[in-house]
């Protein structure tokens, strides 16, 4: 465990030693803040229109049910935050294995007490920890809206659990792409391509027979995240996201072993 802990710490130190990590954190914080305040502004304008009798508007008690903080501010912000993760996570994961191989430092790791499983696990844990940190930074604005909207903490936690699931699924895709190449550019581009396909299959439906489209639809990350966004925490969705971790671990281990026998 000492060796694994040392590796995780090193991975995080290397990550935070590059501008990519800081830019990613800044981008997530900035995007969340901008989106939150922009949606809040629009929401307040709508409320004002409904409430303002001098503008010939409606009485405040006639505000329709769908005009609320949850639907007008919270859910759209979370939806866009999910998309932001698709754009940013591959930038964080692209270097994890690829850079190690390109610089030859994987050879140094291979002479330590770390087992191949620990090397892969350490890198995955560090990447997932970074995702958790990035999401933690975005927590404050949605928390405000949830408290004001009276939706309660469980809903907020469900959404963040979904976002974390989405984040680790995207990170898993990026890590696998990084494990099979020594080029960060190739790792990033392939991660974007795979994540783009896996994020939402619905665009594929028009090219596929209906039965096939229906069969692959449940595999879409976006669909799984959607349930959490509604405040639903379902076992099947948790298993779905956990599956990414297991598959990523197995494939990264395969890449590690292939490098030794190739």
């Amino acid at each position: 465990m000492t060796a694994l802990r040392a590796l995780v710490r090193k991975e995080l130190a290397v990550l935070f030693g590059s501008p990519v990590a800081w830019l990613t954190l800044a981008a997530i914080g900035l995007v969340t803040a901008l989106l939150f305040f922009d949606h809040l502004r629009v929401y307040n304008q709508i409320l004002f229109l409904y409430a303002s009798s001098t503008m010939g508007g409606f009485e405040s008690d006639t505000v329709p049910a769908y005009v609320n903080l949850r639907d007008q501010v919270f859910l759209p912000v979370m939806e866009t935050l999910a998309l932001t993760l698709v754009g940013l996570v591959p930038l964080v994961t692209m270097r994890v294995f690829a850079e190690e191989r390109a610089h030859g430092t994987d050879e140094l790791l291979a002479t330590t007490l770390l087992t191949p499983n620990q090397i892969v696990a350490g890198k995955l844990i560090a990447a997932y920890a970074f995702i958790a940190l990035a999401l933690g930074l975005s927590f404050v604005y949605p928390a405000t809206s949830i408290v004001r909207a009276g939706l309660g903490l469980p809903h907020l936690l469900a959404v963040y659990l979904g976002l974390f699931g989405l984040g680790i699924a995207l990170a898993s895709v990026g890590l696998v792409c990084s494990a099979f190449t020594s080029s960060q550019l190739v790792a990033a581009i392939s991660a974007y391509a795979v994540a783009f396909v896996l994020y939402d299959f619905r665009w594929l439906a028009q090219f596929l027979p209906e039965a096939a489209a229906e069969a692959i639809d449940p595999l879409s990350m976006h669909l799984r995240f959607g349930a959490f966004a509604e405040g639903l925490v379902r076992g099947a969705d948790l298993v779905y996201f956990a599956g990414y971790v297991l598959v990523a671990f197995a494939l990264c281990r395969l890449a590690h072993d292939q490098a030794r026998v190739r």
Partner: protein
Amino acid sequence: MSTTPRGAAIEAKALTRRFGDRPAVSDLDLRIEAGESFGLLGANGAGKTTFIRLLTGYLVPSSGTVTVDGFSPIADARAVHQRIGFVAETSRLYPELRVRGFLRFAGGVRGLSGAPLRDAVDRALARFALEEVALRPIGNLSKGYQQRVNLAQAFLHDPALLIVDEPTAGLDPLQQAEVRRELHAVEGERTLLLCTHDLGEARQLTRRVAVLSRGRLVACGPTAEILGAGDPLALFRGPEVAA
């Protein structure tokens, strides 16, 4: 009363490693005694680095075996890695990490923690005169300092076998002298496997050498004997030329 020499013994038997059809190491038989300072010589592409990678378990042999104190780097990786300190070229460090942070990592992945780790890092910083730069990122250091960091990480866990791959490549003469002084001090303390194509370095630091050419062992014996007589460069060129 006999005393066990400090260091680890290395033994390769019919060791072969191919990349596709191309043999990088071919049918290599070699024994390096515990505590010996041994040089592995050869031109670029001769198979020196491949041999080291097989020895550390980074690569799997195509056939044959290699062991450290009787342990296989594949089947008994932990036992082998506990005995190994590995110094690669300077570029194989993490430029983003600070020197002390890197050494803490290097000690941690070799099983050190708490006070023993702190002590080992402090000792390494002092031994290699790195205290002044302990908080600087490795990438900001000169090549000479980077190589000192590289050496320091390999000594942290007091390994029985020090494997050093081209330790002075790219260093200026002063830095080369510094690194060689450190490696010279290893003699008798532990086994030194020096991989180099610098004949002067081999003469200065090793008692026995093996010469590889195109993956094959073409000569093995006392350094003075192998490098002292005739044209040692002929050995580098290949078996048919050497013959």
